[in-house]
């Protein structure tokens, strides 16, 4: 299990390849990568800034990953999350799961993202031509997070 909070741009394909390199004990690799968009709700985005709470952010994300790993019996999970200034087109987050079969790996990645949206101690500020604004989870993010808590969520 790996959790990395990094301030530099990274290559999600290379990270995913390195994550499963040399593994012959798994039958599935599922990845999700979230990218910074150049527009949000019709407004141009020049850059995003993600703030962390040093130490606590990594600790909390690790706790979430451990919980998901236990629930879905995935042989391995990876979360890489950017902090600092992120430009459109750059990757913000990579979540990857190795599974013995595809179902658990798909569900682990989905549930991990549902948790990260509302429970990862990160704060996102979007800057565009009309100014800057803090981005907060949407109602559907909270709804998905609530759904993810249910034991039957992701039952494979």
């Amino acid at each position, binding site marked *: 299990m790996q959790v990395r909070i990094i301030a530099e741009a990274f290559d999600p394909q290379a990270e995913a390849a390195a994550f499963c390199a040399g593994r012959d004990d798994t039958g599935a690799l599922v990845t999700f990568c979230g990218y910074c968009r150049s527009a949000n709700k019709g407004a141009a985005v020049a850059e995003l800034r993600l703030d962390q*709470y040093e130490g606590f952010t990594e*600790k909390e994300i690790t706790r979430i990953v451990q919980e998901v790993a236990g629930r879905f019996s995935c042989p391995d999970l990876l979360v890489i999350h950017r902090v600092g200034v992120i430009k459109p087109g750059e990757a913000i987050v990579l979540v990857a799961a190795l599974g013995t079969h595809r179902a658990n790996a798909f569900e682990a990645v989905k549930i991990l993202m549902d948790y990260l949206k509302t429970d990862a101690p990160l704060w996102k500020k979007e800057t565009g031509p009309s100014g800057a604004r*803090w981005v907060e989870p949407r109602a559907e993010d909270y709804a998905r997070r609530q759904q993810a808590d249910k034991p039957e969520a992701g039952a494979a």
Partner: protein
Amino acid sequence: MVRLVFLGKFGEMAPADLSEVTLPGGVRTLSDLQAWLGEKAPLLARAMAATRTRLVLNQEVVHDLSRVLVSGDEIAFLPPMSGG
């Protein structure tokens, strides 16, 4: 002396002199601290009351506002988080 950490939008609203503070005698618990912040930084306190604010004491999430503070504690105020 305690250390106060204001994350995200709270960080922009918090007066700079609130990062390290000596609490007055009557401020013993987290709940007292919140009330004290209401006097020291009313705009910030209002913003914290109006949203889902989480409190973290020495890197552990706390729900019990009766927790007694001691010198050297670090208390963080977290607005709604937005990872991913």
